C-alpha cells in the first residue's frame, strides 16, 4: 500500500510531527483515510486536499463571520453554515476544529450569541493553528 509505505517512510521529524498531530488531537482517523488514498497516481493527494480545504473553508468562515455580525443572530442559519463547515473539517480529519464546530452548533441551538461568538473565535484559532502545523508537516513529509 502506498500510503502505508509512505507513512513508514516518514522517519525522523516527519514521522514524529505526524504522530504528534494525532497525539495532540489535531488530527483523527479521517486523516489516515486521506493518506490511504494517496498513491502513485496522486502522490500529493493529502496535501492537495488540505490546500483545497483551507481555500474553501476560508470562504465558509467568512460567511459565518458575516452572519455573526448581524443583529440579532440568525441561529438557524449559523447552525446551517456550521454544519457545512463541520462536514468539511471532518472530511480531512481536523479533529479540534471539528469539536469547535460542534460546540458552536450547540450554542446556536441554545440561542447563545455570546457562546457562538466566543466559540467562533476559538474555532478560528484552531483552524489557523492546524493550518500552520500541517504546512510544516508537509514540508517534511
Amino acid at each position, binding site marked *: 500500500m502506498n500510503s502505508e509505505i509512505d507513512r513508514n517512510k516518514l522517519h525522523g521529524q516527519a514521522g514524529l510531527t505526524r504522530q504528534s498531530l494525532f497525539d495532540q488531537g489535531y488530527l483523527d482517523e479521517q486523516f489516515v*483515510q486521506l493518506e490511504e*488514498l494517496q498513491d502513485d497516481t496522486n502522490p500529493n493527494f493529502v496535501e492537495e486536499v488540505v*490546500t*483545497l480545504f483551507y481555500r*474553501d*473553508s476560508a470562504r465558509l468562515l467568512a460567511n459565518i463571520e458575516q452572519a455573526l455580525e448581524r443583529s440579532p443572530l440568525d441561529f438557524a442559519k449559523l447552525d446551517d453554515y456550521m*454544519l457545512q463547515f463541520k*462536514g468539511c473539517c471532518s*472530511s480531512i480529519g481536523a479533529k479540534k476544529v471539528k469539536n469547535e464546530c460542534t460546540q458552536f452548533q450547540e450554542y446556536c441551538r441554545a440561542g447563545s450569541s455570546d457562546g457562538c461568538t466566543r466559540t467562533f473565535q476559538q474555532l478560528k484559532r484552531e483552524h489557523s493553528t492546524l493550518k500552520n502545523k500541517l504546512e510544516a508537516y508537509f514540508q517534511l513529509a
Partner: protein
Amino acid sequence: MKFGGGAAGSMSLPGSSVARQKDGAADAVSDQFPAGLRVLVVDDDPTCLTILDKMLRTCRYEVTKCNRAEVALSLLRENKNGYDVVISDVHMPDMDGFKLLEHIGLEMDLPVIMMSADDSKNVVMKGVTHGACDYLIKPVRIEALKNIWQHVVRKKKNGWKELEQPGRLDDGDRQQKQEDLDNLSPSNEGSWKTSKRKGEEDEGEEKDDMATLKKPRVVWSAELHQQFVVAVNQLGIDKAVPKKILELMNVTGLTRENVASHLQKYRLYLRRLSGVSQHQGGLNNSFLGPQETSFGMMPSLGGIDLRTLTVAGQLPAQTLASYQASGLTRAALKPSIAMPFVDQRDSLSIEIPKLKFGEGQKQQQQLSTTNTKHINLLQGIPMTMEQKQLVSFQQSPQLSGTLNNLHGGGQNSSLLRQMVQPQSQGEMLNESIGGQMSLIQSSIGQPIPRNRVSNSDYSVNHMADLPHNGFPLSSTPVITPLSSKGFKQEGISSDMQGEKVFAQSYDVFDNLHQHKTQNWQLQNAALNYGAASRYPTTSLGNAVNVSPSVLVHQAFSLANHKNGHNGDCHVGKTISFAGAEEQFGGTTNIDRNANCLLTNIPSRVKVERVQEMSSRTNLFSDHFGHDDLMSALLKQQEDLGQVESEFDFDGYTMDNIPV
C-alpha cells in the same frame, strides 16, 4: 460533468468504463463487478467532493463528479442509463438534496445515497421517507463506499423479478419485449431465465448476471403513468391494489410487480404532498402544502420560488421583478408554488372545487385579493380569444388555430395540435376551455407584460389558446415555479419557452383564481414539468410543443393531482419541488433541460399530458378570469376531472373533484 472545485475532473475510468456501457460488454462488467459501477456524486463542497471522488475511484468505480444538483439532474436526464447509483449531499445551495432524491427516484429510478454531516434522526428519517437507499454520515469512510454496489444490485434484483413474468417494459425494447412477452407462455413466468432467453440478448445476459446490473427497467412513460393514475383514481387511492390497477390499465407486458413498485412510489409521493400541506413548508420551502399553505406561504414560496426562478435563469429574475412589482408574485407564487400535490394526498379525489372554494380558504382570501388585482388586470387585457374561440379551441382544429394565433404558429400550433388531440378526448375542454380561455386569456394578457420574457408575446390571444396554457412552455421547462406558472397560463409555447413565462402566466392566473390557480398550477406545473417529473408537476414550461413528455409528466401529476388537489400543491409542488429549477437545472440549464426533458421524455410523454395541461389551463383560465368565467369555472370545477380531460388527458378525469 461538473467537477468539484479544485479537484481534477473525475471522469469515468478510461477504457474499461467505456466498455461497460449498458448495451455493451455486460460480460466485462460482470466479471469485474462491482468495479466499473457508474457513480454520480453530487456535493457542493469541493473538499468533500474531491475526497469522495478519489475514494470512489479507489474502489474502481466509474465516477462522475458534480457540484450542483441541477447539473446532476440534467446529466442524469441526458443520459438516463448512464449511471448506476447517485450519491448526494443533503445540504446544497441550489437544491435540497431530498428534492434531488425525489426527482431521481421518480424520473430515473436510480438508487440514491444521501450524505451529510448531520446525523440527527429526523434528517436520516427524511432520507428514508424520501426514498434514499442509504444515508452516510460525514466524514465518509472508504469502507462505506465500498459497499454501495449492493444498492444497485438490490434494485436490479427487484426489477428482475418483474422480468420473471412476461411483461417487461424496457426503454427501447418495449416493442420487442412485448413481443417476447406475448410469446412467453405462462409457464415461463416463473423462470426469468426463460424470459431472459426469450428476451434480448443483452437483457438475457443481464438478467442472468447480476453483476451486469443492466436489467432493463420498466419505463413509466407519461402515458403509462397516466393510465396508472387513472386506474388508481378509479379504484380510489386507498383501494388501489396493484392487481386491480394492472387489470384496469390493461397494458401488455406490465407486471403486477411493476405496478406495485410504481404504486409504492406514487403513494410516497402523495404522502409527501399531503405532508407538505400539513406542514407548511415542511417538505420544502417550495412546497406550499395545502392551498392555505400555499397562500400563506406565498411570500415564502414566492421568495423561494423566486429564488429558484432566479437561479433558473432568465425568467426568475425578470419574473420575480415583474411579479413583485405587480404583486402577482404573491398570487402567482401561491398557486404555483404552493400547490404541491398535497391535496391529492387525501385521495386522488379531485378537490379542485374545494380548492377553489373551500380548501384554500386562506388562499381564497389571498386570492381574492390577488384576484382582484389580477382580475382587474385581466379585464384590461383584451381577450383576443373569444369564448367561441375558446370553445373551438377545444376542438383541435381551432386549437391549432388559436395557438397559432398566439404565437406565431410555430410553437403554438404544435401545442395546439398537441392540445387538440387531448381535447378531443376531453369533454370538459369545451366547457372549461370556453370559460377558461377567456380567463386564461385575460390572465395571460396580464402576465405577459409581466413576464418580460417572451411571454409578453402572449397576449390575450395566447390565452385563447388554452392549450397553450395547458402546455407548458415548450421551450422552457418549468424551472421555477413562477415560471411554470406563467407559462401555463400563457400556454404560449413559443414564448413561454422560458419557464419564466410560464410561471408568470401562471401566476396571473393563480391570482385570479384561487381555486383554479391551484388546479391550474397543478396543471401547469404538470404540464410544464411533465417531463421533469412524473408525479410532481414540475411545470416545465415545456409547452406542448417542446416536450410533450414534459407536459405529460406534469399533466400527469396534475391530472393525478388534479383530482384531488387541483389547486394544490401539485402545481406548486411540482414547481417548487420538481424543481422546475431543479429539473431543468434551474438556471441556464433550463433550456437545456427542457430540451433534455423533451428529448428524454417525448417518447413517454404524450400529448395526453399536454392535454391535461390544457385542460388545466382551462381550469385556470376559469379562475382567472372574469366573474362569469368564475362561475363557469366553478361548474367546471365539479367537472374538473372532465376539464382535465379536455386536453385530451384521457385518463384523468376529475372524478374526485368534489363538487
